[in-house]
């Protein structure tokens, strides 16, 4: 049955019929397209070549609190190619001209071509002016290679403020994937600091210019008379709370050290200065960043890119004693008559907890003045873990302050739950508590947190969200938009704050004060020293301070890593900064004597 009709004449005719039918169908369709409708398709092939040119907006500028410019834009030259006009054999010559790697050029063009062969791809930005003309001359020999002027960040003034301002850099492939459709390869984007946190405000909006281009690639003029063009919108300017002079002063005082300074205005939480050392020159990133320069920064063991002011989480040492004192006084666990007799050490749980000196019988004010550890060991046992944790949190420890930077660490405010989690339930003893009472052990804070805490003590409990930007100014309309920040009141009575402030007054002005190095002629300063033990080397020196004592205008925290005592290394820096700032604002009165201490000295 199968074989009966094998390869019959009828079947071979049908086969040939199918071949003719299939080819005829194709040719009929081809004839319809190419002969009948050639004009229609021809027109389409002309229309389709509309080309888009991106208009880069100017990035917003940044000013200090007195209107002094800190960051502005300068023109820089960049070289780009349009992939479809570009021929691969030009790559070696272009690479040597631009001093680039051929592989890098190929990769950039390939990435660009996947988006559109008609979109210019940036090859190299910030060509040095010296070599500009020789390159320009040669560029005429290249096809599809273009010059363009693009703005470049320029940093003006004495202060670098590298960690505040942050830097801009060419967008990475990762960011391209995550930041959304707005960005294209080669775009400049804020990487760190305010450049990153205010990226959408600073960058503005790109504009698009449409040009009609014929099928041979010749530009015929604006497309549709430019009706669909979108003009670029420049970015808005930032006006900061930073005092450029104070910032420069802070940076100069930290030169050669590792550490940080944060100065706040206790009346509104504005950051007056915020320095982190070592720092870096943000201008390195504004044009073309060589790999060597980048590697040098990233591999530096002192981590200059790291913003210590907001990210270094270290034990606060004795600067933290006011938390415990506040808790004890506010919850009426003690009063100012309650004393401890310090013999220079404290025996607890089979261990000896040391002190720096024999302080004798001290009450809370004297204990703060002399930074007596034995007093606070006793007090910590009396106050207890939970109350201490509660007051620490009230002062904002253990959570981010909410400053307008992305780079911020919350630090650690230990609690019973936290100890149960890291040591295990019942695996830690109340001996651990004693260290916490004097700001050692697991508790860790950032300089910014300490400055905000000092601010809240100085102003009787107002905790303002620290911030760098005061307002944003629209470049086109000149309209000013004030940024909104939160504030809260810490529920602690005025009399308690009076006691604590008195203790801090004694630290700087008392006969046995540990922070006398922070005294400033013409103004009364209050503060507290701290020395954070460091298992890897010398202790970290802390100092927190505010001034003037009666109506504070500045509250600050100073950290100098691995140098030793806070009183000798950090307190003088605080004094210098207070002197500079108050002098600048006419608040130093030579007639004001250092207040004579009312309380009788023990020694």
């Amino acid at each position, binding site marked *: *049955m*199968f*074989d*009966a*009709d*094998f*390869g*019959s004449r009828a*079947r*071979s005719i*049908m*086969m*040939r019929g*199918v*071949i*003719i039918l*299939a*080819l005829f*169908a*194709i*040719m009929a*369709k*081809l*004839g319809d*397209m*190419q*002969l009948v*409708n*050639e004009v*229609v*398709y*021809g027109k*389409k*092939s002309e229309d*389709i*070549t509309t080309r888009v040119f991106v208009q880069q907006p100017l990035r917003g500028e940044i000013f200090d609190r007195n209107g002094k410019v800190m960051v502005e834009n300068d023109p820089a030259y960049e070289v780009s190619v349009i992939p*479809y006009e570009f*021929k*691969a*054999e030009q790559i070696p010559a272009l690479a040597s001209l631009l001093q680039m790697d051929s592989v890098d050029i190929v990769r950039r063009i390939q990435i660009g071509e996947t988006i559109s*062969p008609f979109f210019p791809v940036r090859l190299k930005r910030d060509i040095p002016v010296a070599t500009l003309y020789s390159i320009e001359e040669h560029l005429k020999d290249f096809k599809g290679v273009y010059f363009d002027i693009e703005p470049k960040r320029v940093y003006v003034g004495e202060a670098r403020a590298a960690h505040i301002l942050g830097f801009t850099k060419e967008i990475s492939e990762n960011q391209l994937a995550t930041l959304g459709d707005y960005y294209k390869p080669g775009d400049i984007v804020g990487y760190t600091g305010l450049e990153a946190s205010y990226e959408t405000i600073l960058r503005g909006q790109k504009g698009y210019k449409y040009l009609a281009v014929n*099928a*041979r*690639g010749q530009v015929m003029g604006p497309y549709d008379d430019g009706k669909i063009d979108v003009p670029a919108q420049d970015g808005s300017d930032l006006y900061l709370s930073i005092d450029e002079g104070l910032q420069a002063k802070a940076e100069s005082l930290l030169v050669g050290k590792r550490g940080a300074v944060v100065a706040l205005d206790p009346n509104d939480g504005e950051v007056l200065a915020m320095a982190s050392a070592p720092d870096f020159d943000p201008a390195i990133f504004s044009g073309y960043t060589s790999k060597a320069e980048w590697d040098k920064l990233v591999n530096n063991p002192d981590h200059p890119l790291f913003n210590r002011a907001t990210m270094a989480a270290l034990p606060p040492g004795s600067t933290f004693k006011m938390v415990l004192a506040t808790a004890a006084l506010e919850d009426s666990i003690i009063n100012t008559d309650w004393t401890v007799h310090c013999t220079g050490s404290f025996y607890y749980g089979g261990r000896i907890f040391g002190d720096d000196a024999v302080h004798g019988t001290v009450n809370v004010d004297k204990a703060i003045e002399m930074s007596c550890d034995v007093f606070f060991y006793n007090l910590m046992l009396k106050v207890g873990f939970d109350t201490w944790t509660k007051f620490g949190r009230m002062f904002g420890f253990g959570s981010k302050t909410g400053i307008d930077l992305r780079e911020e660490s919350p630090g650690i405010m230990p609690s019973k739950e936290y100890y149960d989690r890291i040591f295990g339930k019942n695996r830690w003893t109340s001996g651990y508590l004693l260290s916490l009472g004097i700001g050692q052990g697991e508790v860790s804070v950032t300089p910014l947190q300490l400055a905000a805490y000092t601010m809240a003590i100085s102003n009787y409990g107002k905790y303002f969200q620290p911030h760098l930007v005061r307002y944003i100014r629209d470049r086109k309309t000149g309209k000013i938009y004030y940024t909104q920040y939160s504030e809260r009141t810490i529920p602690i009575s005025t009399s308690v704050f009076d006691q604590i402030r008195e203790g801090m007054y004694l630290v700087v002005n008392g006969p046995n004060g540990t922070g006398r190095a922070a005294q400033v002629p013409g103004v009364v300063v209050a503060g507290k020293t701290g020395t954070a033990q460091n298992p890897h080397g010398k202790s970290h020196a802390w100092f927190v301070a505010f001034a003037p004592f009666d109506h504070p205008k500045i509250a600050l925290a100073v950290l100098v890593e691995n140098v030793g005592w806070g009183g000798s290394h950090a307190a003088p820096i605080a004094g210098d900064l207070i002197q500079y700032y108050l002098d600048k604002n006419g608040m130093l009165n030579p007639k004001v004597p250092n207040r004579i201490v009312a309380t009788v000295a023990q020694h």
Partner: protein
Amino acid sequence: MFDFFKDSFDYKTFLLALILAGIGLLAVNSATYNSGMHNYFSKDLLWQSIGIVVAFGIMFSSNRFVENSAYFFYAVTVLLLIFVLVAGKKVASHTSWLGILGGGGQPSELAKVACILTLSKFISEKSNERPQWQVIAISIGIVGLPMLLTMLQPDLGTMIVYMAIFFPILFWAGLPPIVVVGLIAPVAIVFAEFTGTATLLITVVVFGVLFFVLSRKKLFAVTLSFVAVSFGLFMEYFYRKLLQPHQQKRIQIFLNPNLDPQGAGYNALQARVAIGSGGLFGKGYLHGAQTQLRFVPARWTDFIFTVIGEEFGFAGAAFTLLVFGALFFRGIRIAELVKTKFASLASVGITSVLLFHVFINVGMNINLAPIVGIPLPFISYGGSSILSDWMMIGILLNFYAHRKEH
């Protein structure tokens, strides 16, 4: 040797294939001319040369060489397909490019040739020994195995090529028309369903009429028609109710790329604009604005016909198609000339596979067929496909050389 070329060399088939290879070289050169991919031309030239050497090698082989190696060849390609599934490296979301010899290779191209030979050999030997249903069932198995393996890759285009192997070979083998129509019916109904309810209705009616015309037993025809209607109803239910809207949409876009102007439709539109704007004589070699400006994607492989259509116009496109047509007629002629049943069946299989490639590939360039990754024989750039095209030509030349032997 001279005698061989006088009597046994089918210069017609060889020359037709050579012309197509020449068109291919021109088109690949033009498609990659402005992209800095000059090695494509030399690589294409290399593969065409290797292909011709392989074709001559097969031509000079003995009478039964092709037939005797069919099963072995089939086993090797099936193993390669499995290997690709397990270890193949991903290229354009398919796993079919074998990561060997640095250049990669597609065993699914070779599997098609192996499948033609194996099906032809099986039917030529067993069709008279076994009942018809067994022959059909085993044939489905022979074609189904490599088809399933390419479907898992997944390579939809190559998969449907197996239909172009299966139906024509069974048809040429003498299978009664009613059976051929009955086998085609379910495939046609599936496609009709995806196109729309109206098309489905028409398709079911057409098959019903065909069943009544072709079958002498009316009861049998009624049964077949009933099965066809039920299957159509089931497909309707499956498509409308069981598939998610996005799955329906994917099928619709597959059959009509214009529904997706940003994705598949973009390619289809660019290809049509390129071909349509070519006119009667084209824009001249290397002067196709669309192809040179790289508007057309994959213009050296799946969309290479746009280069021919734009730069050589209707004249060039029609010439190319006529050369193909002549080659296909030559394939059918060889099927009639040869004495062995195997060679005859294999010639038909080769012809129909080449025809199917041309129809689908050119069809998707001009919006006649869905967009599937099927190369244009001899012309599209790609080592595996060029090699398997020339292998098929070598097999035809071998059959012709031994056409008088049993």
